[in-house]
């Protein structure tokens, strides 16, 4: 019962958030009109109940960690700080490779040892957006198979590929 309620609550909070974001600037109560606020709550409730049924039917159990605002704050700090810096570096590197055509690709394996799905998702997406690396597959044990555009080391440590990202992923999704 608890897990089902968590799924419904997550769907409710997310759809309410997105509805309010999409209709910002329509009225005078803060930024919204009264009708929009009523409709937002109604629609979010309907969406949440339907989504809860679908989740149950598919056997997906979203973790209640998604409702913790502290994790979202951490994700925001992470996205603006280290991730954005690494993305800038990544793009300059790819620009260099596009112009010179100097590549030495290969698929390497790293084992950062992350347990939860949320942490693995954050790390995989971060690896894709950072210098010269692209996650291809993740197996059940949490090994990441990474396509590296310029292989410097055939058996790399996790730190060589993702820097401090494994720590951040563990903090956000652990």
């Amino acid at each position, binding site marked *: 019962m608890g897990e089902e309620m968590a799924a419904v609550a997550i769907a409710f909070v997310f759809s309410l958030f997105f509805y309010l974001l999409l209709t910002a600037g329509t009225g005078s109560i803060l930024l919204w009109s009264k009708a929009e606020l009523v409709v937002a709550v109604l629609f979010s409730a309907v969406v949440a109940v339907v989504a809860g049924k679908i989740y149950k039917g598919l056997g997906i159990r979203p973790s209640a960690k998604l409702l913790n605002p502290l994790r979202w704050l951490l994700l925001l700090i992470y996205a603006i700080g280290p991730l954005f810096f690494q993305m800038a570096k990544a793009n300059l590197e790819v620009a260099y490779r596009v112009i010179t055509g100097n590549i030495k*690709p290969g698929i390497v394996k790293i084992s950062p040892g992350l347990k939860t799905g949320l942490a693995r998702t954050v790390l*995989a997406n971060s690896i894709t957006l950072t210098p010269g690396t*692209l996650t291809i597959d993740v197996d059940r044990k949490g090994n990441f198979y990474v396509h590296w555009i310029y292989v410097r080391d055939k058996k790399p440590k996790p730190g060589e590929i993702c820097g401090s990202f494994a720590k951040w992923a563990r903090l956000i999704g652990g």
Partner: protein
Amino acid sequence: MIWLVYLLIGIGMVFQALGSIALHRFPDVYTRLHGATKCTTFGSIFIYIGIMAYSAMLVLQGQINQVSLLAHTLIVMALVLITNSTGAHAISRAAYRSGIKPGLAVVDELRVAK
């Protein structure tokens, strides 16, 4: 202040162009994905930041209803950031499973694991 918007959108356009050129510069699917995903995502983010700066200027000048432009662009930015990298995983995994080997690869740990 308007030059800031032009500068941000200009940087974004340069990276978008690099993404398009990367599709023709690189030899196989995986390396093309590198160029296409990273450069277009980063270029889009710069374009959206430029537009958000512009709408923020309008809001500061007193056009409160321009908040909706800011919020909508923020949503598009978050969506592009999440969906592009996930789509790249999906394509690269599908390419590997459908039997395309990375042509110039010096090491292939995934084949060893299978």
